[in-house]
């Protein structure tokens, strides 16, 4: 099976870096984002990035149904590849 590390990084790593590690950076009022203080604007942005990252993480997750199925089809057609 392919490595799950890229999925872990996307799904868990990116939101963690943005929300926890960047705290010192985003904890400020200016510049405003749509009228909201920067700190809120940042977190609202993180929500959408989280959504994108979890989605992308799932697309490349070797454990998702679709990727297991793909791997199996590959195997059937004789090419190298291992199912879970």
């Amino acid at each position, binding site marked *: 099976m392919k490595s799950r590390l890229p999925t*872990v990084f996307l*799904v*868990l790593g990116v*939101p*963690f870096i943005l*929300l*926890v590690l960047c*705290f*010192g950076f985003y*904890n*400020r*009022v200016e510049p*405003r984002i*749509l*009228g*909201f*203080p920067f*700190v*809120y604007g940042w*977190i*609202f942005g*993180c*929500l*959408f990035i*989280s*959504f994108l*990252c*979890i*989605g992308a*993480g*799932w697309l490349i*997750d070797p*454990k*998702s*149904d679709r990727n*297991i*199925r793909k791997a*199996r089809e590959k195997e059937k057609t004789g090419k190298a590849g291992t*199912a*879970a």
Partner: protein
Amino acid sequence: MAVIVVGLILGLSLLLAVMSRRGAIRNSMSDIMVASRSFGALLLFIVAVGETYSVGTMIGVPGAIYAHGASYAIWFMGYMCLGFSVGYFINPMIWRLGRLSGALTVAEAFRWRWGSRSLEILIALLCIIFLLPWVQIQFAGLGIIIKHLGFDINYGAGILTATVVAFLYIAIAGIRAPAWVSLLKDFLLLFAMVIGGLVVAAKFPGGVGGIFSEAARLFPEKIAVETVPLTKNVTFMISTMIFQAMGVCMFPLTFQFVFTGKSEDTVRRNQIFMPLYMYMYPFLILTAYFVLLTAGGLSNPDEAFMVLVSQNLPSWLVGMVAAGGILTCILVAALCSLLIGGLLTQNIIGLFKRDLSSLAAVNITRLSTALTLFVSAMLAIYLPALMLGINNFAYFGLTQMFPAAICAFFWSRSTKQGVFAGLAVGVAMVFILVGGKIDIWGINKGFIALMGNAIVTVVVSLMTKPDAVTEKNNRIYREYDPSADIRGEEKAG
């Protein structure tokens, strides 16, 4: 007017509950507790959202921001957002554990993994003790909503009516009823918060920008987090964020919704969309600052949102918003009580009386659900408390299951003695830290207990040896092939 709207919506919710019975299997414990593990992606999402956003969101979040400012908003949003990420990995594993063990409750899933009855009882007790206050805050929230409904209803009578409705959901269709009622509830809740936010933005001179400029001038300490000294806010906020992100997956309600899913991948996909629902927070945050500016000095900060609603909306809209809140309270209270009822029946009473028939188990579950509702309603009437405190307390205890879960999924060498000792130490530390009001650099108390818990789990596990049952079930867990389930589904479809 407001009261009529609330009444109509409650009636509608009961109708939904009756409709949800379609496809249900009568008098089956599995159907009542986990809907026979039949929920596909859409229903699963609805239940997940339904149990995640309790009345704490509508009432508690603005209350906390009103009282404490930005640091609370950041950890609320931060922990939930991170929790969805953690759940992406943990929830499918929980599902697998549930599937293989046939568990209906969280306690059974853990018992199966290590073949330990005492662990089952410990976990059942832990869940019951730390979930009861969660039901209680639902009723406390209900009390606040009723108070601002603009109609003189007795607080006690209101809460008792709510317990009856909550019980009816469960009696009608087990976990299926809250699932379907969630649809109505989430729509109304979302509607309520968006309306609140929009009204505020329209009313205040300068709109969103105006509110925050004014707030920055009058309450600079509430608009960004004070970082000096570090131990005042920052250590608590960051440690709580990380701690509760782990806790989200360990909430017994999470286990329950995960168990209703059809497959590992359904559960996994569900997490993708969860962060999007959080876009109601901007509206809530707006309302909190608006009330801070226009109605300072509320004796109970939890009333902030309802003060805004009752002072600024026409009566029928107040009714819709209140109905959303009330439905949320009832629904989450119903789900939690069903869970506590299930734990009592399956894991505590079932222990003394091993040969319960399915019908008897179902009836005892209903009875204990009713009892739970009644006890927590009484608690809410006689022991009012701030939501924030209870939210923290519930997480302190429930998150202590996290090391056990990690051991179950990843660590073959873990033993039942280790997990039991770790849990016991973790919970004991929670009580000591909270009871003794011990504060270490402002770090979340549950987080400190969790560290002790993890260390004890590892040390005791290494000192003991996994027994035969543990090794067998560990092997079964590891060798489970989800693709075999995919094939099964294709055949069936």
